[in-house]
């Protein structure tokens, strides 16, 4: 085997941050090489240097044995490096072939291009009709367009940035089959992810980054997920403690909850019963009603009478503040602009939801000192890394702000807490702390609804699992004994996976 790509001592410094430090590794022809690391470990910077978006401060790169120093992505593509980004750049109103043509320097005539797309997609087991409009495609199919766009350039090195985050497990399997086929044809694949299980089952080697430095390049199959995680965080992973929970009397009853769709997805006759001390996990591909469900439960979206009852009390006509007073708390997915105001200090952000429960607002008057003290309390209890309560929320890293947002609700002693994507974009250490806090809260007798797209997280936390598909909630199943395949089928809904709805 020969090196397709080699990095020697790459370094990049941003103001105040050493993003990459003496990074050396090599990707060989025919291998799927994982790049593994927490958020902020330097994966993105490294990949941007390889793709010509950022220039390294020091060190060299070599592609196919020749020195390689791309000025821009165009030069990188010309040299044989292609990249599939996490977020797609496709025009909804245009067809597959038109979108592919837009990304090419000298596109061939449409009929010829369509034929090449069809041939290529058949060859790699990625069925795709070149004449279809992007708007009609699922996330998995959109990703295929991006991949085909890359394959048309005959890349020697293909970079995939967290490609499975938008896919159902079945769609991910199709993707891996394609990647394997590509690798066997001699393409080197650099695969970026922090999902340990999929790296262990599909990648040949893994280079692990921590704080901008290479920890090592290992065979992921020879290590357990825990060992890989430990290398990533540089410490033993804390195992979450699920003990001490006994589901008891029902605390939350939701019956026949439907909402008008508007711009999002309409909820259709959602029903669930949540018991005290229980964690109910709700999975689903993004855009199937997760946000809408949280908004309906938090009271942001008005709900019809008789649909939501907390410990027997009908709350369906109450607004967010009245529901919070009653003990129904929520933490939305979007930290900046929904769960918190980026421009406001942490102390001010406590006022968003904790005003009444923490006695920070009395008769309409804000007690600033109490707000600062409560913010300090959240910071201490949840190990939020920040200079203090006066720091603007927007200045915190994603993981730290998430700890703050979750901590603010957990310390509110909720009867029921609804969280959406509690550990999205959060590094492994912080994620473990957040999950443990949620488990502890349930152990103290609160009922929790955890909405997430991270199936491992749902399996780790929840007692029962249901899937949200196009605004419909499936019947719950006990998590114990549930396999990933069964979950995948639940997520796809009754119609099979291809229709799993993904918004533009």
């Amino acid at each position, binding site marked *: 085997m020969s090196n397709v790509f080699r990095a020697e001592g790459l370094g990049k410094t941003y103001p105040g941050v050493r993003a990459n430090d003496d990074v050396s590794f090599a990707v060989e022809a025919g291998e799927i090489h994982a790049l593994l690391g927490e958020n902020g470990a330097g994966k993105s910077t490294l990949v941007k240097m390889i793709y010509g978006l950022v220039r390294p401060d020091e060190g060299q790169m070599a592609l196919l044995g020749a020195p390689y120093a791309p000025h821009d992505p165009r030069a990188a593509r010309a040299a044989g490096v292609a990249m599939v980004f996490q977020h797609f750049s496709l025009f909804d109103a245009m067809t597959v072939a038109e979108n592919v043509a837009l990304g090419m320097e000298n596109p061939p005539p449409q009929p010829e291009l369509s034929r090449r797309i069809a041939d290529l997609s058949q060859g790699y087991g990625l069925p795709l009709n070149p004449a279809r409009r992007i708007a009609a495609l699922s996330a998995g199919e959109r990703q295929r367009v991006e991949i085909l766009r890359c394959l048309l350039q005959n890349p020697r090195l293909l970079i995939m940035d967290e490609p499975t985050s938008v896919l159902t497990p079945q769609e991910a399997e199709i993707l891996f089959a394609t990647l394997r086929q590509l690798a066997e044809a001699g393409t080197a694949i650099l695969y970026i992810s922090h999902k340990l299980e999929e790296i262990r089952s599909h990648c040949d080697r893994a280079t692990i980054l921590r704080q901008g430095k290479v920890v090592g390049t290992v065979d992921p199959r020879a290590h357990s997920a825990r060992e890989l995680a430990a290398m990533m965080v540089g410490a033993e992973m804390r195992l979450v403690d699920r003990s001490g929970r006994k589901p008891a009397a029902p605390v939350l009853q939701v019956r026949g909850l439907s909402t008008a769709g508007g711009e999002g997805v309409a909820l259709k006759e959602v029903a669930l019963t949540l018991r005290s001390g229980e964690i109910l996990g709700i999975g689903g591909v993004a855009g199937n009603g997760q946000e809408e469900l949280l908004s309906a439960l*938090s009271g942001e979206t008005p709900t019809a009478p008789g649909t939501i009852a907390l410990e027997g009390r009908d709350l369906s006509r109450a607004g967010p503040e009245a529901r919070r007073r009653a003990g129904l708390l929520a933490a939305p997915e979007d930290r900046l602009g*929904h769960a918190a105001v980026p421009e*406001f200090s942490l102390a001010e952000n406590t*006022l*968003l939801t904790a005003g009444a429960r923490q006695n920070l607002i009395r008769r*309409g*008057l*804000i007690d600033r000192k109490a707000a600062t003290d409560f913010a300090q309390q959240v910071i201490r209890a949840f190990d939020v890394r920040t200079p203090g309560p006066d720091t603007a929320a*927007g200045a915190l890293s994603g993981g730290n702000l998430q700890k703050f947002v979750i901590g603010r609700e957990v310390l509110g002693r909720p009867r029921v807490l609804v969280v959406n994507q509690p550990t999205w974009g959060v590094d492994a250490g912080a994620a473990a702390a957040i999950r443990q806090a949620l488990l502890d809260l349930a152990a103290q007798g609160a009922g929790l609804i955890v909405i997430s797209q991270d199936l491992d997280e749902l399996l780790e936390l929840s007692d029962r699992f249901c899937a949200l598909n196009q605004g419909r909630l499936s019947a719950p199943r006990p998590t114990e004994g549930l396999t990933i395949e069964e979950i995948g089928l639940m997520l796809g809904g009754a119609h099979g996976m291809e229709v799993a709805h993904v918004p533009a």
Partner: protein
Amino acid sequence: MFRLEPRASAPLLWQVATPVLAVLATMIVGGCLFAAMGFDPVAAIRTIFWDPLFGPTAAYSRPQLLVKAGPLILIASGLALGFRAGIWNIGAEGQYIIGAICGAAVALAAYPMDAFWIFPAMILAGAAGGWAWGMVPAVLRNWFGASEILVSLMLVYVAQRIAAWMAFGPMKNPEGFNFPGSRNLQQYEAASNPDLIANSGLHWGGVAAVLALAATWFVMSRHVLGFHIRTAGAAPRAARFAGVRPERLVALCLGVSGALAGLAGLFEVAGPAGQITESFGSGYGFTAIIVAFLGRLHPLGILLAGLLLALTYIGGELAQMMLNLPAATVQVFQGMLLFFLLGFDILTRYRIRRRA
């Protein structure tokens, strides 16, 4: 080449510095403009910005400063509430006119009675009139999603026509030799709003402006309502999550800013203006928008900006008399001020970097 780089946060220094820079740039460009028109730029700028305060006629123009700044500050402090929440009341001029008409109506109906309650009743009527005129765009936005910007602006022209109708019709002074315009309230003691200290320029409107500044400062910094207003402006979804009902905020902000503009109109018609005429609206409602932004929507800033804009009014008039500068000078100056302010504002959110 230069490029703009977003800042992590808006430094206080730049927030304070940009209004000052805008004023300086207005002076410089204004001076160039005057030079191009054949006037002495230094003399013109001095006449506008210096003479009203310290020139030979300052004894006359200094009280005028308070007369002009009062309504500007009163209106701007109300507008700033809505602007903080992202609710754009552009029609304060109309609310000012309607407030004046409603207040004057009470006085004219009571004429020539002499009773202590007449002036307080006029104040209530003025505030109610401005409130009602402000609630029209609020209701249309809440019920039909109509843009409050357009509706409030267009209602200004309706209010101006109503003022003309009043001056020629129902409110015309029966003893006025058929001239258009109402009775002069300055000559009706129970309804007049004279200087509290003779020749100081300070009438009840100035007192109301200071009270309004204090009240809005308290609400914005200490009360949960102000917190909700700021949240709605900074992150509307977070505001809804916190339990803010957007429709209520729209009604509240447009209603309060309308009421304050109506009050300004009432104090003007009962005081310096004296009567309802066809051209009662003199642009305070629009200039107050500049005052609010120049003052960074902050009570202290609004106080300073109100005084500065009042200065341009008086200085502009002085320049017309002394140097024969055109009457549009004031509007050009005020327009440039807002233009430069918005332009320099970019420096609070971005820094300029030389491209590598």
